[in-house]
């Protein structure tokens, strides 16, 4: 089966081409081709998963053998002195896990978009790019070498650009698309430099070969490993991760990227593309293990990001932006997790992909119904949109890490691993991660309350979305709820669990068992509960500031009111004063005024520099020198040409004068 695994990325790629070529003539505008190809790819992924996971489980249960790895490659081009570029596939647990996630979410989004983009004038184009994106993402995960990975990486970037700017008539949308592309491209400088540096160090792009060399402590030509250069390359990769996975301080493109159609946000900006950075670190995990400095960088960046983005999510009025910041925050978890544990990082990637895609699609359904992104214009939708509500609730609970839903297991694993790792970075991630969990609950409670509770505040009569949209919601709700169970932290189950499926080496799996810490789980759940109560109280009391809080307090029963009274002190002090009125605005200020302005300012400054360079240096300076040469030649010519008056008499006079002078000269010469 793994020998035809290349079909999995090839199918969507072919589908993209076919849709562009024939889509307009198809009955459903080409969508059926995309759905069919993704469905086939998903089935193939499942079959492949059985093979690969089965092989891995066989190894873990028996304790002998190796993690499943299948590579195959073809030469792409000779590039001199015997080196070549290769295109190759690498099938292992991680690849298959990403296959499952990407094909499934992509399939759901393909189906969902049938309803969401029904009647759009560029419907066919949309499906073409969507398929193209899936192909690029699958190429990224299946690459066996860094060069091909870079290719996939850039291709997802450009398809993201096309999809964010899908409604390009509005300048804001194309602005967002350009911002996304350029910001991630800035991060890609790191990736390119990293790839180049690793190639320079190891003389190959092949990930397996590089990993093996690092394992043996050698580099190209058998010289001893230069860990400084390796750390440089890996930290350069971190810059790429920061760009692509929207980590602090390059995260600002992701909320803007919500300008794209909502299914796109679900696919690209929640489940797949933004996880590419995390995937990259996971793919190179053996290298990162050898470079502690790079790991520490990951931990710090992840911790900053998860906290900061969580605070920002609190104050967004656009439902998609809440989810976008939430995604940034969750990506922070993953990045931080990868500083300590391979399994914890990718497990959160896996579960998050499902439930965040669900949440985005749910948000899309809500927006479809309410005709607005703004939380102010929603409310009371639970009654009219029962399916959306139920599935959205599942997604929210999973995100909130409520046991036993998906998010609980993966997030708990991160905290456990951070605690186990200890040290400054471990403690940082543990504390910040726990706080971040509470923040997550807080902002998701707010979203739930403002969207589904109370009465509808917007215009029109919202109704449930069509079946093509609710179907995927239901289909996604199942894994969102249950997928966490595949990695139950029970020792006896572990040889059959997710950690075994996706291991990159048997030795690592054996030395890094998955543990469960009741204390940490209890604290996390407690914090989550506190966050939920605080959020409920706060947003019940102060929905959005424009309704009178007292009037809203009225219907609440006295007992509850009294109970909340205590909570409200806590709420007012901690949540409202410190978090909402101080920290969150400060974060917003920092974000909007400093970071985003710095990013935008850097862009503007670059353009201004360009203008300066062009006007002053190029036109005035370099071209000026040239013009100066030309002008001086011209000037002396103009002086000289005065002698050429065309006046015959002048010429004659000059000639005769010359004759006389010559005669005198000769005469003098003769005499002397």
């Amino acid at each position, binding site marked *: 089966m793994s020998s035809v695994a290349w079909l999995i990325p090839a199918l969507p790629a072919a589908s993209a081409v076919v849709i562009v070529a024939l889509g307009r003539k198809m009955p459903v505008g080409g969508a059926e081709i995309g759905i069919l190809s993704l469905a086939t790819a998903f089935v193939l992924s499942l079959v492949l998963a059985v093979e690969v996971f089965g092989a891995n489980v066989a190894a873990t249960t028996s304790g002998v053998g190796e993690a499943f790895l299948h590579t195959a490659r073809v030469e792409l081009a000779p590039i001199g002195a015997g080196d070549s570029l290769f295109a190759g596939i690498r099938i292992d647990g991680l690849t298959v896990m990403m296959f499952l996630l990407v094909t499934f979410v992509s399939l759901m989004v393909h189906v969902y978009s049938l309803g969401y983009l029904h009647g759009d004038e560029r419907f066919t184009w949309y499906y073409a790019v969507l398929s193209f994106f899936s192909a690029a993402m699958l190429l990224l995960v299946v690459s066996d070498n860094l060069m091909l990975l870079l290719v996939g990486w850039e291709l997802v970037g450009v398809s993201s650009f096309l999809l964010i700017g899908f409604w390009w008539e509005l300048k804001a949308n194309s602005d967002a698309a350009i911002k996304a592309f350029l910001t991630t491209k800035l991060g890609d400088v790191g990736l390119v430099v990293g790839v180049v540096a690793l190639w320079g160090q190891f003389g190959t792009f092949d990930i397996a070969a590089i990993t093996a060399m690092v394992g043996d402590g050698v580099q190209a030509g058998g010289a001893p490993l230069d860990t400084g250069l390796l750390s440089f390359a890996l930290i350069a990769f971190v810059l790429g991760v920061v760009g692509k996975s929207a980590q602090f301080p390059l995260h600002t493109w992701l909320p803007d990227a919500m300008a794209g159609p909502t299914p796109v946000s679900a696919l690209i900006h929640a489940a797949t593309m933004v996880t590419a950075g995390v995937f990259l670190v996971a793919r190179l995990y053996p290298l990162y293990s050898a470079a502690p400095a790079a790991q520490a960088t990951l931990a710090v960046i992840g911790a900053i990001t998860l906290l900061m983005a969580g605070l920002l999510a609190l104050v967004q009025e656009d439902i998609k932006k809440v989810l976008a910041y939430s995604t940034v925050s969750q990506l922070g978890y993953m990045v931080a997790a990868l500083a300590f544990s391979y399994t914890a990082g990718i497990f959160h990637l896996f579960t998050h992909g499902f439930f965040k895609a669900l949440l985005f699609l749910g948000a899309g359904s809500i927006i479809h119904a309410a005709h607005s992104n703004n939380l102010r214009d929603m409310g009371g939708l639970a009654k009219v949109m029962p399916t959306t509500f139920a599935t959205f609730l599942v997604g929210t609970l999973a995100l909130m890490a409520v046991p036993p839903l998906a998010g609980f297991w993966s997030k708990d694993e991160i905290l456990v691993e951070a605690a186990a790792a200890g040290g400054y970075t471990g403690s940082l991630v543990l504390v910040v991660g726990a706080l971040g969990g509470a923040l997550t609950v807080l902002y998701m409670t707010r979203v739930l309350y403002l969207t589904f509770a109370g009465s509808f505040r917007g215009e029109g009569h919202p109704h449930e979305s069509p079946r093509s949209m609710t179907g995927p919601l239901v289909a996604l709700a199942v894994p969102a709820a249950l997928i966490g169970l595949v990695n139950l932290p029970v020792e006896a189950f572990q040889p059959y669990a997710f950690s075994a499926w996706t291991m990159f080496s048997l030795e690592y799996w054996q030395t890094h068992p998955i543990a469960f810490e009741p204390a940490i789980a209890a604290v996390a759940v407690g914090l989550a509960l506190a966050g939920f109560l605080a959020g409920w109280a706060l947003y019940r009391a102060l929905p959005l500031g424009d309704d009178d809080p007292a009037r809203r307090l009225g219907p609440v029963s006295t007992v509850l009111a009294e109970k909340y009274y205590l909570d409200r002190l806590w709420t007012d002090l901690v949540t409202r004063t410190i978090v909402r009125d101080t920290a969150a605005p400060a974060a917003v200020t920092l974000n909007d005024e400093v970071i985003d302005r710095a990013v935008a300012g850097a862009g503007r400054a670059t353009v201004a520099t360009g203008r300066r360079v062009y006007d002053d240096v190029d036109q005035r300076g370099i071209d000026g020198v040239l013009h100066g040469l030309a002008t001086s030649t011209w000037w002396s010519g103009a002086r000289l040409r005065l002698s050429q*008056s065309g*006046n*015959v008499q002048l010429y004659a006079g000059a000639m005769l004068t010359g004759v006389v002078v010559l005669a005198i000269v000769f005469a003098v010469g003769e005499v002397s």
Partner: protein
Amino acid sequence: MAAVYPLIFAALLFSVGVYGLLSRRHAVLVLMSIELMLAAVTVNLVTFWAIAGDALLTGQVFALFVMAIGAAEIGVGLAIIMLIYRNRASVNIDDADLMKY
């Protein structure tokens, strides 16, 4: 007879011709000045023949040649002047500066 007399006469004619050539704007006058200079040349030729006295009468023959060439020059010169006049309505030699720059 002293040889200097005709020679100085020729030098005088020539210098006057030079002056006229350089100082007048009327194209025909310039031609006349050239004729003066040519005449000076013929005087010199004849004088030098008289001094040397060769059998082939070279000086006289050359004087005749110069005369003929002078006549030809006047003919062509006047034709050019007329052409310039037709094109520019002027016989002012300062205006005939098409070759400038």
